[in-house]
């Protein structure tokens, strides 16, 4: 009887049938001649580069399209006006308040993430937002407030005269005794995933940051005769953004599917893609800002496992710094 021919399957089929051994075989090759790498050829600490296009939407005040790897995300920022008479618990701010309380108290920033656009086979429309979408929106919302990215001063609308000049806040301050805040700008920040390829938090945050830097709100004032908020058509400078926080996420891939701490091998994969994210339980996210020269850590979050401790967390910082430099270079 002739010997049966050996069964050979392509690597794509192998990846679909048994993804965990596939990734393990890539990271730990059986023979030493092939170098160890991730499934898409990257090194464990290598992140995918960003590709950013801004101002592509005409009905939004600011917009950005961010592409990284196979992921494509669109973010649109629209401003709408909210009268202070319509705010139930409105109180005029004290002079010494920082301004960030108003953003949180009156819900002036409204970020939302929409995954159910068919961006991946498990995100189909017709169902309410999944847990992933809800947690993403909430994490982005809290990061936006804690990073103090925006100042409520820039979103206030005063009763202004017709001497409209850019940045006239200082001149009015010296001229009149008090200025009444008549309305606020509310920013609706909508993030739409066209294509999902793992690591949604980093890409969504990058899109929001790029879109906010691109946002140009028109100069608005309260018109006493018509008793409404009117905007003028002159050119305004973009919205003032404080700092540039950039997020960097890494996932922990363990050699055995269920592994106790201290046993077995593991790899830290920065910027996981869809296949890697589905195989890893533990993720670490670090948000840093290097605009003032030294690295400031704004947020660290870690969940899903016990492998990463303070020592390994410190090793993630240089990867995050490199990501920050690369992001700032792309934004220019």
């Amino acid at each position, binding site marked *: 009887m002739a010997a049966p021919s050996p069964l050979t399957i392509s690597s794509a089929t192998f990846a679909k049938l048994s993804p965990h051994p596939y990734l393990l075989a890539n990271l730990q090759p059986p023979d030493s001649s092939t170098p160890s790498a991730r499934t898409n050829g990257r090194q464990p600490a290598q992140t995918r580069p960003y590709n950013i296009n801004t*101002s592509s939407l005409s*009905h939004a005040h600011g917009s950005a399209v961010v592409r990284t790897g196979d992921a494509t995300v669109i973010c649109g920022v*629209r401003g*709408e006006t909210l009268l202070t008479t319509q705010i139930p618990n409105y109180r005029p701010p004290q002079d010494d308040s920082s301004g960030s309380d108003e953003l949180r108290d009156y819900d002036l920033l*409204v970020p*939302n993430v929409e995954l159910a656009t068919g961006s991946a086979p498990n995100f189909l429309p017709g169902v309410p937002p999944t847990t992933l979408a809800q947690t993403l*929106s909430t994490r982005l919302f809290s990061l936006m407030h804690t990073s103090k990215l925006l100042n409520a001063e820039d979103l206030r609308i005063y009763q202004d005269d017709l001497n409209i000049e850019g940045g006239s806040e200082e001149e009015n301050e010296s001229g009149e005794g008090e200025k009444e805040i008549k309305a606020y700008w509310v920013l609706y920040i909508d993030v739409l995933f*066209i294509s999902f390829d793992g690591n949604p938090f980093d890409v969504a945050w990058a899109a929001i940051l790029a879109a906010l830097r691109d946002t140009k709100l028109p100069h608005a004032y309260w018109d006493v005769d018509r008793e409404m*908020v009117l905007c003028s*058509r002159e050119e305004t400078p973009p919205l003032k953004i404080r700092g540039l926080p950039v997020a960097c996420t890494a996932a922990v891939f363990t050699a055995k599917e269920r592994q106790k701490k201290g046993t077995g091998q593991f790899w830290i994969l920065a910027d996981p893609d869809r296949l890697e994210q589905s195989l890893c339980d533990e993720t670490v996210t670090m948000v840093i800002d290097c605009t003032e020269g030294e690295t400031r850590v704004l947020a660290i979050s870690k969940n899903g496992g016990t492998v990463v401790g303070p020592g390994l967390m410190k090793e993630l910082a240089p990867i995050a710094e490199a990501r920050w430099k690369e992001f700032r270079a792309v934004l220019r």
Partner: protein
Amino acid sequence: MADRRRINGPVGPTAPPVYDCPQSRRVAKQLDDNAIRKIFLKTGVTPSASGSAYLEIEDPNATGPSGTSLKLTCTVHGPRALPRSAPFSPHIILSTHVKYAPFATRQRRGYLRDSSERDLGVHLETALRGAIIADRWPKSGVDIIVTIIEGDQNRDSPEYDRDEGWDMMNVLSGCITVASAAIADAGIDCVDTVAGGVAALVAKDDKSQPSIVLDPDVARYHKIFAACCVAYLPTRDEVTNIWFKGQLPGADAMIYNKMVERSLIACRNANQVVVLALKEAIRPAQQDSS
């Protein structure tokens, strides 16, 4: 109505910005009656889906950095097995979803589907049903999801101008074209590629007689009387869907037929774009295998 699962804004109503002086009207380029705006179509934008496509229609009077007026993306997931609870069906079950992005139109749209989006979904399903060879896929379903990133709306008109909805015709024809490219990219058997085209009966200015134009740019005309959107299979010369809206003057009894025939020119043009885009997509694959 507060949506528990999304971040809702403030409780009070928010209003879009109202400007104190009207924007100076852009001088629209005078185009031929039969001139159709250029279409950009690309397949394979969502690699994790079975098939996908992206469509843009140019804006001939663009002032901003983006020179395009209509932007759509379509993803196709399937054919996949129906759930066990579903009854047996000898042919494939098409389900279409059309959704405007919140930043797509002048008025902000919410995240829940409203009746106009459901209407577009039904028209799209009717248009595609005629092209797919359904009997080859029993007990299966396919999901076609179209997201409208930017609608074909008039940017110049002041805020109090009532939106009459003529741009939905252009949006539907774009949806049909992009969905047929995505279905072909997914490898689902079709008898032909469907393409959408729009013809409208317009009065160009105050005094002129109504005339039929193709691919109407909503901003350009003084008044639009009626419009029709047709989904057409060029090689088989079959129409799968017609959506007609408006009022026709009673003088000419055959005006309806004339409008539909003229719209077929727009359909053939859109079909050429689809065929070209699909050829581009298979060319690298052919070069690899050769």
